[in-house]
């Protein structure tokens, strides 16, 4: 009987184990043309801004596909496929040959190319006591500055006042890729509550968690504010989009900050920082100052091609109340270029202080 049982179970296991595979799509091929087709189909079906970026994907596909044949090497294929990624001019869209290898081939968009640096960390440290990395020296140098230490050495938040004007508050969030608790946010806004105006230094903040950025933004309003809409790709067709209209709700905190705010921007203000910016953009008493931002208004999705190459793509874009497409960045209300030769002061901060007088 045991033999009969074992045979039955074995037959059933082998027999049924392929059952669901009958109902699955076949595994894709991994030859050069198949990989090219897989990636271009993903871009065509999922990428949300082909029109805005002026990318004619069909023409691009046709021209690039002819360059692929049986002798196309892996590196050549990566370069050809990477042409599609480059055409998107999108920092959220990337292609990486081997995610686990730091020397791997990769393609993404260089936001900084063609733009001067918008922030000088050493000037911020020596002239204002604002240290991006956690150090006790910062609070000795500037007794009115506080730091919220992150998991590594990078501060999650730096806030207080600057020596140049103790009546002006200062908050710097170097990245939104951190966890800052509601209690910590309350503490930050409690500490700057009695200032007459605020500098919110967003420079160098390349993004992270948009929900956190939105939470901070909610402290700057006292009533709901319509921001515009996020236009999502919801299906494979060219016109398969759906709009989510966004209205920022106030924090309703007793520490909300309803005073003039200058938001400092540079080219590396990107992704979740753009979420922060469009959230507060309609507020008249909040101005941006510095350089054009990097943009990156869309939500991002990622995955692997059949050969293991990593990809990421923007599958939405944000269009604000002025019908501006934000993905390529936005010019500030007050353009100011940092003078990198003069390390004694930060022209953007100085101008912001002046504007808040």
């Amino acid at each position, binding site marked *: 009987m045991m033999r009969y*049982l074992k045979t*039955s*179970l074995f037959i*059933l*296991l082998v027999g*049924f*184990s392929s*059952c*669901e*595979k009958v*109902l*699955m*799509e*076949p*595994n*894709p091929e*991994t030859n050069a043309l198949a990989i090219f087709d*897989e990636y271009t189909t993903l871009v065509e079906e*999922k990428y*949300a801004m082909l029109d805005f970026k002026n990318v004619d994907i069909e023409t691009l596909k046709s021209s690039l596909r002819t360059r692929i044949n049986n002798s196309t090497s892996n590196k050549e294929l990566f370069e050809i496929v990477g042409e599609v990624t480059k055409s998107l001019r999108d920092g959220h869209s990337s292609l990486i040959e*081997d*995610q*686990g290898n730091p020397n791997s081939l990769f393609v993404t968009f260089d936001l900084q190319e063609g733009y001067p640096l918008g922030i000088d960390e050493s000037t911020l440290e020596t002239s204002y006591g604002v240290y991006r990395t956690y150090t006790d020296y910062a609070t000795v140098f500037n007794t009115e500055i506080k730091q919220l230490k992150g998991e590594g050495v990078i501060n999650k938040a730096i806030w207080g006042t600057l020596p140049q004007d103790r009546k002006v508050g200062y908050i710097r969030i170097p990245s939104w890729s951190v966890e800052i608790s509601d209690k910590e946010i309350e503490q930050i806004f409690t500490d700057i509550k009695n200032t007459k105006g605020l500098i919110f230094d967003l420079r160098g903040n390349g993004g992270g968690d*948009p*929900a956190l*950025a*939105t*939470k901070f933004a*909610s402290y700057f309003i006292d009533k709901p504010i319509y921001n515009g809409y*996020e236009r*999502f*790709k*919801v*299906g*494979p067709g060219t016109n*398969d989009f*759906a*709009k*989510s*209209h*966004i*209205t*920022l*709700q106030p924090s309703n905190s007793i520490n909300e900050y309803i005073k003039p705010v200058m938001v400092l921007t540079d080219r590396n203000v990107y992704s979740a920082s753009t*979420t922060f910016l469009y959230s507060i953009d309609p507020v008249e008493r909040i101005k941006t100052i510095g350089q054009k931002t990097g943009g990156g208004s869309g*939500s*991002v*999705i*990622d*995955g*692997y*091609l*059949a*050969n*293991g190459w*990593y990809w*990421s793509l923007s*599958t*939405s874009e944000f269009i604000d109340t002025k019908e501006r497409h934000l993905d390529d960045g936005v010019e500030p209300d007050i353009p100011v270029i940092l003078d990198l030769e003069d390390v004694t002061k930060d022209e953007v901060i100085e101008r912001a202080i002046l504007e808040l007088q």
Partner: protein
Amino acid sequence: MLFCSISLLQLHAQNTNSFYVDMGGSFSTFQDVKYSNVRYNGFGGEFGMGYQKENQKAIWGVNFNAMFTSEKADKHNVGTARTNNLTVGAKYLYNVKRNLFVGATWDILDLYKKDFDGLQNNSGYDIIGSTLWASGVYDYKKFRFGLDVGLASYFRESRGFAFSVPQNVMESGDFDYQNGKFDDHFAFKYYELRTMPRHFQVRTTIRYQLSNKFSIAYKWHLRKFSEVKKYPVTYGAHSISIRYNVFNRIK
């Protein structure tokens, strides 16, 4: 998956009450065509426990089951998809003919969760909900054969066609970073009710009674559905498990 809903503790007993524990190995497969046609497969374990009562007229019981596997892609070696499936269910089957019971199984809670290593916004995937099954059990000597066919599922799939939120959130224009509800597993607003055959689920069990205390079972579960037309999600799971009856009262 809830594999232990159909079981036999004492095949020819008049009345039995039992509390049991299941332990075994499992094999799972997965494919989400929305993002790739590459299939994922992998081995893992299974654990379950439950209470069951049966007599000549009916079988009823409640159970908990957990399955854990670690899947790899068929076509490349990048990343692992850690898969967990937890279910809490109840069943009632009525004897309609000698050795044949029919009835219903209700998976009160069914959580299928995957974590894809290396990915960012797409690293998490889950399906959470509840399923009503039509169930049948047939006894033959020391064997018990079980079949469940999914009639209706009320559930939420965590990612849509192009973003890691449910498809209906995006289609309805409800997306908002201040709205944490789409991250909430129990935000029923974003649940969908789907019925067969569009939402196809089937489950089979073959159990052999080794002794009064022990039985062995092979179980299979298949689920296929598509919240985005022509972009189905398909997964299957197989397991072989040993059941130990912690107590087994026979009248």
